């Protein structure tokens, strides 16, 4: 794969994710705006929609928190993955951040000090169903990331308890996490994997139903419960506390039932590029 072309493609998705709101997110935000009856919440939603327009027109970041870049690489069977390929991807993201005046938001966790661009997190997956590489960037802002939760339930726990945990996590997130949220839920796997699934759930199209019927009805039920919390945009109340709930599951151990919740602010940003080998 041509290094230069790859880096350019990465720079482009950094730009796309940071300046242009995702179509599905923008659609649900507009729906929330037209549905909202609470005057102040409606005004806050209007600010959010205006903000997206200005960001795109002026090439300004949708949010000053341009996030910790999380990269998801999916490789088809015709691709050979090695460390230099991953380095090229990370480098492309770094250049994209620098060139587009995005905020260096990464620091040493203990020494802190001046922030820098280097330090994207990269997850690798393999898929027999695609050719070439599929690279997705999710710039994850920390106002909402700080609200993530993990709970290791007993295997005999009722579904109600799991629902309660998800709703309680959103309640705790409150206005600080920048509602209306998109709530990612990961069920199963190990502790780390449940949280990764929760994050990956944010990459699904949020205006489409979950192909798993059971999860789809659970998503709807949770969304309804969450919107009864009346937190709303900026915590001003109303019915728009979340735009969507997305759930992913994976097989787990007989002794456990991990549930991870990863919250995204209303500025759920991601962009994907397909690269041929």
């Amino acid at each position, binding site marked *: 794969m041509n290094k230069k072309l790859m880096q350019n493609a990465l720079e482009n998705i950094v730009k796309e994710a940071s300046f242009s709101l995702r179509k599905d997110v923008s659609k649900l935000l507009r729906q929330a705006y037209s549905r909202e009856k609470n005057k102040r919440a409606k005004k806050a939603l209007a600010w959010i929609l*205006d903000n997206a327009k*200005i*960001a795109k027109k*002026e090439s300004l970041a949708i949010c*000053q928190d341009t996030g910790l870049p999380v990269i998801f690489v999916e490789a088809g069977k015709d691709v050979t993955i090695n460390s230099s390929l991953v380095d090229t991807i990370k480098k492309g993201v770094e250049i994209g951040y620098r060139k587009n005046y995005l905020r260096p938001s990464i620091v040493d966790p203990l020494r*802190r000090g001046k*922030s820098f661009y280097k330090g994207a997190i990269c997850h690798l997956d393999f898929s027999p169903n695609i050719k070439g590489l599929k690279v997705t960037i999710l710039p994850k802002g920390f106002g909402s990331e700080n609200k993530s939760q993990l709970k290791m339930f007993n295997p005999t726990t009722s579904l109600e308890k799991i629902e309660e945990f998800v709703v309680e996590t959103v309640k705790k997130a409150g*206005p600080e996490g920048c509602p209306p949220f998109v709530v990612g839920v990961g069920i199963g796997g190990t502790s780390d994997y449940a949280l990764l699934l929760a994050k990956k759930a944010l990459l699904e199209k949020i205006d489409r139903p979950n192909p798993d019927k059971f999860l789809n009805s659970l998503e709807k039920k949770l969304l309804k419960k969450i919107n009864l919390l009346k937190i709303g945009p900026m*915590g001003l109340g109303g019915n728009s506390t979340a735009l969507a709930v997305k759930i992913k599951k994976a097989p787990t151990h007989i002794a456990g039932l991990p549930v991870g919740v990863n919250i995204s602010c209303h500025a759920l940003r991601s962009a994907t590029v397909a690269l041929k080998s």
Partner: protein
Amino acid sequence: MEKLKTSLTRNNLVRLKAGEEILFSGDLHTARDQAHQKLVEIIRKGKNLPLELKNEIIYYCGPTATPKGKAIGSCGPTTSSRMDDFVEPLLKKGLLAMVGKGRRSKKVREAIKKYKSVYFIAPSGCGALLAEKVVAKKLICFGNLGPEAIYRLEVKDFPLIVAIDSSGKSIYEDL
């Protein structure tokens, strides 16, 4: 909506009520986690602060880099509660008000009441919209902290909502 054309003073600040919206024109000083830690450390040691806090407003914000031809990059508020433990020493030095997003601790509410201050929230996750309200940006101190440095922002018609008023009343009492 009330337009406050001149800088806020203690006198017109105490008249604002929780929930009220204003369009503020004047100066805001950005400061977030590390800047707060440094300021409070300087106060604790009894040394001179690198800026006058009296009658100033702190904005919890770390802007992006400034694109060519613009006054500032995206510049929305960050989560205020991370600064809760640093609030009182700054109010003691005469800080007028704070701008951020989200809830505050009980201790902060009490301090706001005691020092006749106000806590405002700004449209959260709307950094591009707010960038358009900034006329000028100037580095004041802690430049080695990059986006976490203290910048003076001259703003015009910057939308703010009173989240905690000077009597300690909060719009978040039910959350």
